């Protein structure tokens, strides 16, 4: 429903967003992933029309026409409100700005206040709201005009675990009604609640697609081992094997990346039996989003250093 073509934003010499293109289809929940400073916020703000791109464009497809802002709801990373208003007043104000009549805006505001769970404090001044309440109010104002595309910039990173859970559940529900594009650097959230991901690094989209297709594509098979004692000694032994590409120690766990999963499993198990390794855990797993993330970011970091 929305297409982004060769979008770039250059600040002085810094290419914050560097020639990104993608299409979002209706009814999906897309996570925009990337480390801090990857250009996620800049990309979202260009799509929301808050900043103008240096080059490239954002286009709505066929059935949606006119001002792009009519079709999108946007929640910035740190939403600020007119703190002298009450939550309900602000929602009605936002609704009226989005062409709702006074009556529609009021009923929609009450409905959303209930939905995001701040109905009890609707008549309190926003200056008295807690951080979690403000975030919820922020989501409510983004939804006030039933946008086809909901863009959320780091919707959960500032919340406590309970608030985070609530917002993720809410997003799960909203998926049925609208397309959601949200940025995050928390990989668990992305893995849990998105259908597709766009992975940004240094202004570029370095990976995109559905989570499962990405995992297939990056199927660096991995075997995780845990021992009764420290894993260092074993990692050296495994490094010499020809099926092993590299090993990585994460606290107690030894991750062994291999080329041929079936053969590697046999070789490692045989070795373990022969040498009487005190194995606690032997797990054959596929790459997780976190691994993928680290892999992509690191490979780019290495490339940068070589240059």
């Amino acid at each position: 429903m929305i297409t982004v073509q060769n979008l770039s934003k250059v600040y002085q010499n810094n290419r914050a967003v560097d020639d990104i293109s993608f299409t979002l289809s209706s009814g999906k929940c897309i996570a925009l992933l990337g480390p801090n400073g990857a250009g996620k916020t800049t990309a979202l703000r260009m799509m929301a029309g808050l900043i103008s791109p240096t080059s490239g464009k954002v286009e709505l497809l066929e059935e949606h026409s006119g001002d792009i802002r009519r079709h999108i709801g946007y929640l910035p990373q740190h939403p600020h409100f007119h703190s002298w208003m009450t939550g309900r007043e602000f929602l009605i104000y936002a609704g009226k700005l989005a062409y709702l009549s006074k009556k529609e805006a009021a009923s929609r505001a009450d409905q959303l206040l209930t939905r995001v769970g701040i109905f009890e404090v609707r008549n309190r001044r926003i200056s008295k709201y807690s951080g979690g309440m403000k975030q919820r109010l922020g989501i409510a104002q983004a939804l006030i005009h039933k946008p086809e595309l909901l863009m959320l910039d780091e919707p959960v990173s500032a919340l406590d675990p309970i608030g985070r859970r609530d917002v993720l559940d809410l997003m799960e529900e909203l998926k049925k009604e609208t397309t959601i594009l949200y940025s995050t650097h928390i990989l668990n959230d992305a893995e849990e609640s998105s259908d597709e991901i766009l992975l940004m690094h240094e202004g570029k989209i370095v990976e995109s697609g559905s989570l499962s297709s990405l995992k297939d594509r990056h199927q660096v098979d991995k075997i995780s081992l845990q021992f009764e004692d420290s894993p260092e000694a074993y990692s050296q032994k495994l490094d010499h094997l020809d099926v092993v590409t590299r090993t990585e120690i994460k606290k107690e766990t030894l991750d062994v990346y291999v080329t041929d999963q079936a053969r590697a499993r046999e070789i490692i198990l045989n070795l373990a039996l022969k040498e009487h390794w005190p194995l606690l855990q032997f797990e054959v797993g596929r790459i997780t989003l976190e691994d993928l993330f680290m892999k992509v970011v690191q490979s780019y970091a290495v490339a940068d250093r070589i240059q």
Partner: protein
Amino acid sequence: MQWLTVFNKELLESWRNFKWIWVPLVFILLAITDPLTTYYLPQILEATGGLPEGATFEMPEPPPSEVFMMSVSQLNLIGVLIIVLITMGTISGERKSGVAELILVKPIAYHSYVTAKWAAYALLIWISTFTALLASWYYVNLLFGEVSAGSFLRTFFFYGLWMTLILSISIFMNTLSKTAGLVLFFTITLVIALNLLSSVFAHVVKWSPSLISSHLRNTLISGELSSALWGSAGTAVLFIILLLASAAYTLKHKEIS
């Protein structure tokens, strides 16, 4: 519709932070100080110790229109500062805090946003100026003698136009800078520069908007509307339109926060 939404919100905001109370009050205070102190100066001198023995002090009674103009100049000094102070954060503050991010992603036209804010403040300023000049006019009539209702209304109208121009400059500066202090600085600098330039070139350019108050003085004395006053008023209107258009344009093409 959207224009009215922003306009109403601005009125409500000004009401909730008491601008609708203190701005008219301060304006009234400014406007009546001069007529009152001028009239009661002998009594004030008496009460604070009086004149030295033997000194005689003859106060010429100033003409009513002159006293009325004193109120206007008083407003011109501090009133202008107040206008800039109350408006210096209206857009810049919203941009700085990030509220503008929430507002301007809603499908509102930038020119509506700018002009609705402008209109809400213009209303406050016109009403404050009106009550202030009305109070001054009342005391002048009471204490010094008659200034005609026509003169009062004319002064109000043309002077209101000058105040509106100040407001428009401030609104425009609001879109240039996110820092309220800079908005204040730029606006005051521009107003002072305008005043200086037009007093230096007064013999050449008679239609500068900052000459409105000096034209008004002549009008009050002669009782006739001069073409120079109309000219200045015309330029003021033109400037206001240009400033508002540029403000909307700047806001649209600038990074919002």
